[in-house]
């Protein structure tokens, strides 16, 4: 088995969906998470606060430096993530499809290095 990272690709400066739309999405995401748990594929999942809430820490000359904000501003940011366990890419992509339908944003599926116990 392998671990795969499902990243939610969120456009920067995009409009938040209307509350009732958002509510539907949240419900679908909950169903998706439940399905992952039942299949034994669940490892971890969560939504992230906006990049403006981030702080970057860098080691410099034996000291550490803090900067307010994200490391790099991009056209997209990581809006949330989900780590799953799957036997191969086909299985991981099936979860990716379900995630994309639930969240309605692009999902990047990326393998972790190495293997995990089945």
């Amino acid at each position, binding site marked *: 088995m*392998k671990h795969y990272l499902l990243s939610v690709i969120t456009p920067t400066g995009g409009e938040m969906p209307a509350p009732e739309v958002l509510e539907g999405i949240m419900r679908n995401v909950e169903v998706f998470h439940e399905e992952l748990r039942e299949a034994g594929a669940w490892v971890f999942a969560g939504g992230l606060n906006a990049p403006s809430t981030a702080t970057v820490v860098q080691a410099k000359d034996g000291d550490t430096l803090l900067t307010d904000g994200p490391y790099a501003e991009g056209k997209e940011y990581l809006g949330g993530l989900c780590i799953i366990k799957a036997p*191969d*890419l*086909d299985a*991981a992509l099936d979860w990716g499809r379900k995630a994309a339908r639930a969240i309605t944003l692009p999902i990047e599926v990326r*393998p972790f290095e190495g293997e995990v116990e089945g």
Partner: protein
Amino acid sequence: MSGASRHPGAAEPRRPTGAPAVLTADVERLFREEYGRSVAVLVRAFGDIDIAEEAVQEAFVTALDRWPSAGLPPAPAGWIITTARNRAIDRLRREASRADRQARAALAQSLDAGSEPAEEGPVHDDRLRLIFTCCHPALSTGAQVALTLRLLGGLSTAELAHAFLVPEPTMAQRLVRAKGKIRDARIPYRVPADADLPDRVRSVLAVVYLIFNEGHTASSGDRLVREDLCAEAIRLGRLLADLMPDEPEVRGLLALMLLSESRRTARTGPDGALLPLAEQDRSRWDHELIAEGQALVRQCLRRDRPGPYQIQAAINAVHSDAPTAAATDWGQILRLYDQLLVQAPTLVVALNRAVAVAEVEGPDAALALVEQLALDRYHVFHAVRADLLRRLGRAAEAATAYDAAVARTQNAAEQEFLRRRRRALPAD
């Protein structure tokens, strides 16, 4: 070469040369026919494409070394696979003892596979698995094409670079990246489940047709290598038709390629200029290929599960049936295009259909259809439009349209053809 399997891309198919004439030919032929099968068997045995490729290449080098004195073994293909498997196991044992984790895993997989009863049936299945892996939709089309030609056809990086007009390091990088993704993302090595099969077959067929068209269009570069691409695509088409006898579209694609290949030599005139269908010397068509293609089309018709490749093959079969251009059954071609437009409602199909409309209903009706198509960037759109305008006696507009077509193709032969047409326009 030690440890080269850890450096993906290091293994290069080397077509053996230098043996006595008869044997070089034997080994060359065996290489063409058996490279893909051997790699496919070894990938299943070791779960690693680089290990498989390298072992198979070593086996061919050993064959060339040994066979001139020892003679051909009774089953050369089996000999290659057995030798490759032994070579790979020897190497992996050495590397596993140095605590190489990947070597250990590959060794363990090969021992597992060796102890399994032969439940897999014919080795054919391995090549089918390999094709589906190479054409996995998680790989870019360019990577799918390169991997398929490399692993199933044994084309070297230099040959691939030459055929696709990219620098060799670019092609090498493309192969390394694709093989790395298969390994690291664990793209499975199997024939997809029934539910996914239609989609996945479509992407395999698209790759094979792309290889064929790349060879057929001869946009530039070495002509010989390009013709090799057509031959390779047809070889893959035959293999797929053999491995998936129940997929009518597979048969349809093979028929389409054979019928279009049958006109290859007739497509260029003595001066190398491109000749359209209507101007080709039909005695130069390859009637053996036509017979084979038409037989496949008839099989498809009996199946009655039409798809885009089968319909395109049927359209080509109608052209092949006509002893002269004037005898072409355009009514039937138009009916087939109507059907194709339902199955594949694209602008390009609509454009091709308009060409048939011009023959059945006249250039006026066809031009009205063409003018509605948003295909400004496609040179054929302008070429078709130019031809219709020419037939309607609107020479000035036709000239402008020919210019637009010339500006939108890189293909020298097509440019020459279009310029010739433009020069032949009557002066206003």
